[in-house]
């Protein structure tokens, strides 16, 4: 698959899962995965999913504005850089955010998230 197509497919899958069933994100992370969420560092699939499922909102919707990607090196990794909006239920204004993912290939031929960094973009 073409890298840009792969990045787009991953981004769609990630945010669709986030918005519909956050616990379903678990199989995108492994033991060595790292998430930095608004400056807080979390490691490992279980801890990452615990953080994401305990965020202070039940429902949300991500709308993606930009997706950039680049291959990261000989190990076959892929860097994905996303910006967009996050609409929380009951909030009038959407939050703007940026997020980067470093995807690494799995032996089964798919990808998992090794590095994940999320930041809100304040005005």
């Amino acid at each position, binding site marked *: 698959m073409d890298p840009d197509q792969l990045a787009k497919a991953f981004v769609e899958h990630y945010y669709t899962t986030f918005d519909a069933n956050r616990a379903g994100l678990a199989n995108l992370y492994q033991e060595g995965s*790292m998430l*930095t969420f608004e*400056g807080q*560092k979390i490691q490992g699939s279980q801890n990452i999913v615990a953080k994401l499922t305990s965020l202070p909102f039940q429902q949300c919707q991500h709308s993606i504005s*930009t997706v*950039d990607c*680049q*291959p*990261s*090196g*000989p*190990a076959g*990794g892929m*860097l994905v*850089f996303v*910006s967009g909006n996050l609409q929380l239920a009951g909030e009038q204004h959407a939050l*703007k955010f*940026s997020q*980067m993912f*470093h995807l*690494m290939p799995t032996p089964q031929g798919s990808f998992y998230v*090794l*590095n994940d*960094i999320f*930041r809100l*973009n304040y*005005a």
Partner: protein
Amino acid sequence: MEEQVEVVSKAFVEHYYSLFDNDRSSLSSLYHPTSMLTFEGQKIVGVDEISAKLRDLPFDKCQHHISTVDSQPSSSAGIVVFVSGSLQLPEEEHHLRFSQMFHLVPSPAGSFFVQNDIFRLNYG
């Protein structure tokens, strides 16, 4: 290991934006032939091409103000760095907000170079 990654990232970010704001042509020292830059969606590969792109940006002077720096160790002893901040151009009243990510890879000389660089303005 964690502290080392943070120390390296902070030092890199300071160095990178200081060069950018004061001596933009010297940024070429941070890139290698395999380096990639995506600047506002435009993909550029290689030291010369990246240097040319940054040199030809439509402003002579600028000043970056960094708000956040996040970093994590990555595969093969690399480091990913995620920066947000604002970019001040002379005579422009309002700063431009931006986000930028770097993938730093160890160089044979014992320092790091930028293998991947992605820059995006954050519009209001």
